[in-house]
């Protein structure tokens, strides 16, 4: 496939810079080539070189992804075959004891694949990424939300290794200590709950739960929604009809209802929540991708690729999916809060593993002490509220940044 995507078509095919990569053209080699190319004539472009460089950048991310996946599989194999059942996966006495659960394996897998994919998208079109970032940066509330979410994510990821499991800190002698804002001491900045567990530790462990649910379920939903949506749009006819009728059906079976039913049949499990939200929560993304892909399908580069002999699957994989990635990322950001809130609601109602410190569970536990110890429910509630709101702010700002009609 030589010269399948002329630079002239680069209108909206890169994702936003949703991280710190505020890197203008300076270091991207392929970008230098491209800005040269626009100055030179079309015939003068050395497409072999452009392809080779772009290919190299993609290969690097793919290689890193593959390497990390192999490492992960090796670890999983070690846990499954070498470590005895019931023994912790990592056990260095005094330093770290960690029994990796099913949900955490899934989360690790999603992190590896997700980081590699998003990184690849961002570096593929650094110029577009920088432009979206400039648009995004205008919305100050969204930028603040982004930092907040990155902080929550980082603390949720490493926090449980730094701070102790709340259940190891049970001490009825220090129950109901006030938080600092209510005149408490700095020993327990957010106060303690009825069993003397510091709320900070409960909040940190809750961040982990919310992030695992939000990221993993959304990743599954995005993958399914993108595949189904782009396949339906591109193949049309009966394929489209059958897939979209299925989407209709899935929409009539609200995923929350399905979750309650499944939790009734199989008992509380975080893995079940994550997998079901991912597997049955993608109909919105699927519809969106389909309609976007239908619009893209009319674009010249799809005809050009087909004329150059690309197969239908190649066109979907290399032209349709990358070009709807902006829409997908926005939809994903707006899907996360729904999943996070759903999990917290289930936990509040009591449908959760006893060893999962969901914010919803802490809020439920503090309900009875509201009049005397308002902070037990309020502190995790504020964190849940801010996290959900931050996702909505970021998602809306991404939507605005990538809407071509909003260009000023």
């Amino acid at each position: 496939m030589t010269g399948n995507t002329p630079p002239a078509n680069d209108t909206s095919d890169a994702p936003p810079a949703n991280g710190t990569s505020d890197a203008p053209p300076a270091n991207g080699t392929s970008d230098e080539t491209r800005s040269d190319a626009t100055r030179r004539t079309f015939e003068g472009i050395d497409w072999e070189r452009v392809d080779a460089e772009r290919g190299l950048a993609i290969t690097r991310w793919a290689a890193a992804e593959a390497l990390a996946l192999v490492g992960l599989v090796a670890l999983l194999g070690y846990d499954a075959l070498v470590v005895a059942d019931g023994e912790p996966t990592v056990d260095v006495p005094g330093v770290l004891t960690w029994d990796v659960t099913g949900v955490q394996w899934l989360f690790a897998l999603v992190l590896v694949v997700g980081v590699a994919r998003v990184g690849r998208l961002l570096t593929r079109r650094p110029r577009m990424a920088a432009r979206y970032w400039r648009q995004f940066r205008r919305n100050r509330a969204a930028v603040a939300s982004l930092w907040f979410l990155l902080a929550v994510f980082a603390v949720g990821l490493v926090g449980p290794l730094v701070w102790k499991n709340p259940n190891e800190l049970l001490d009825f002698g220090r129950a109901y200590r006030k938080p600092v804002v209510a005149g408490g001491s700095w020993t327990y900045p957010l106060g303690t709950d009825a069993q003397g567990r510091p709320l900070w530790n409960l909040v940190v462990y809750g961040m982990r739960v919310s992030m695992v649910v939000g990221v993993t379920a959304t990743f599954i939903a995005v993958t399914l929604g993108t595949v189904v949506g782009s396949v339906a749009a591109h193949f049309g006819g009966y394929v489209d009809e059958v897939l979209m009728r299925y989407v209709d059906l899935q929409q009539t079976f609200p995923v929350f209802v399905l979750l309650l039913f499944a939790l009734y049949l199989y008992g509380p499990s975080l893995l079940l929540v994550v997998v079901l939200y991912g597997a049955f929560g993608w109909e919105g993304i699927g519809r969106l991708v389909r309609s976007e892909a239908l619009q893209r399908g009319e674009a010249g580069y799809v005809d050009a690729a087909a004329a150059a002999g690309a197969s239908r699957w190649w066109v979907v994989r290399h032209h349709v999916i990358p070009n709807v990635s902006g829409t997908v990322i926005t939809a994903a950001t707006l899907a996360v809060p729904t999943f996070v809130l759903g999990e917290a609601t289930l936990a509040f109602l009591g449908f959760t593993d006893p060893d999962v410190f969901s914010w919803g569970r802490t809020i439920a536990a503090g309900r009875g002490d509201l009049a005397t110890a308002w902070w037990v429910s309020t502190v995790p509630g504020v964190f849940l509220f801010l996290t959900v709101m931050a996702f909505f702010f970021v998602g809306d700002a991404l939507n605005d940044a990538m809407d071509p009609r909003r260009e000023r």
Partner: protein
Amino acid sequence: MGLKRYAARRVAWAAVATWIAVSATFVLLWLSPDPGADVAAAEAAAQGLSPEQAQERYLAARGLDRPAHVQYLDFVTSVFTLDWGWSVSQNEPVMEALGESWGHTVQYAVPAMAVSVVVGYGVGLYTAVNQHTAADYVGSFVAYVGISIPNFWFAIVLILVSGVWFQDATVLGLSLEPLSFRTFYDPSIDTFTVANARQLVLPTTVLATASVASQMRYSRAEALEYVAADFVRTARAKGASGWRILTRHVFRVALVPLSTILVVQVLTVLFAGSIVVEQIFAIPGLGRLYLDAIRGNDTQLVLVITLFPVVIAILGNLLQDLAYVILDPRIDYGDR
């Protein structure tokens, strides 16, 4: 394709969808262990009896040991003939348990629904027409707060503020006691009384908040799509008033996608919301019944209440498909 044929096709699809949903529920139920049988086995083991026998007896008593296709036919027949069996947790027929509780749910769910449509659409359209004004910014911020606040947390904060603090707080010498609403529902109060209205204020508020906010967001976004459309400009050029443009041109077209969202919203927000609200305010409605059924391993009742929102969704989608062609003359029947 004419309107009649289109309507017939949509009705047929609704029937097929219902059948698929019921069948899928059966398959799920058939593939998984029965929680009630597990409880029976555990009880037998505790009494020193054989757990296997207890389990078999439990399954045989409910006809669950018969071949799958017999069970399936039986299941489908009983679902569609409204023969919904006996509820273990309520100790009465499922029908009666439902009959006693739906009234309590409707009392606050219908007002919440009405508020979210009227206020949500109203504010959404108003802010869309007055984009970038102070009212727009305030409205948008309120909408963000509304969709982000977890309803269960909002409910307990409201209980704290209204039920505890307002009891003896005063502002400028005025007691806030009139604003202190009942925080627990008393089912013995008659339906059409002031006392009943007062005790429904908090549940309605909690349930309505999220849906008002999301209807606001959606209607604003949809209306913004059309305020600059050609047909709106034409209407304005012909001298139509602002109100007429808003109601007859913008809102009429925007209602098509909005009605889709409304059906989905009604279900997810109201279903999930009613479980939470009824749990917190102790309302003996459908949500409470569902939770009791789950906790009491009452498969029969869980099943019926699970199918409830599904059937409502299918009917809602059907109505909305029919409303489509009436609301937006640009949609032609051959499309779907």
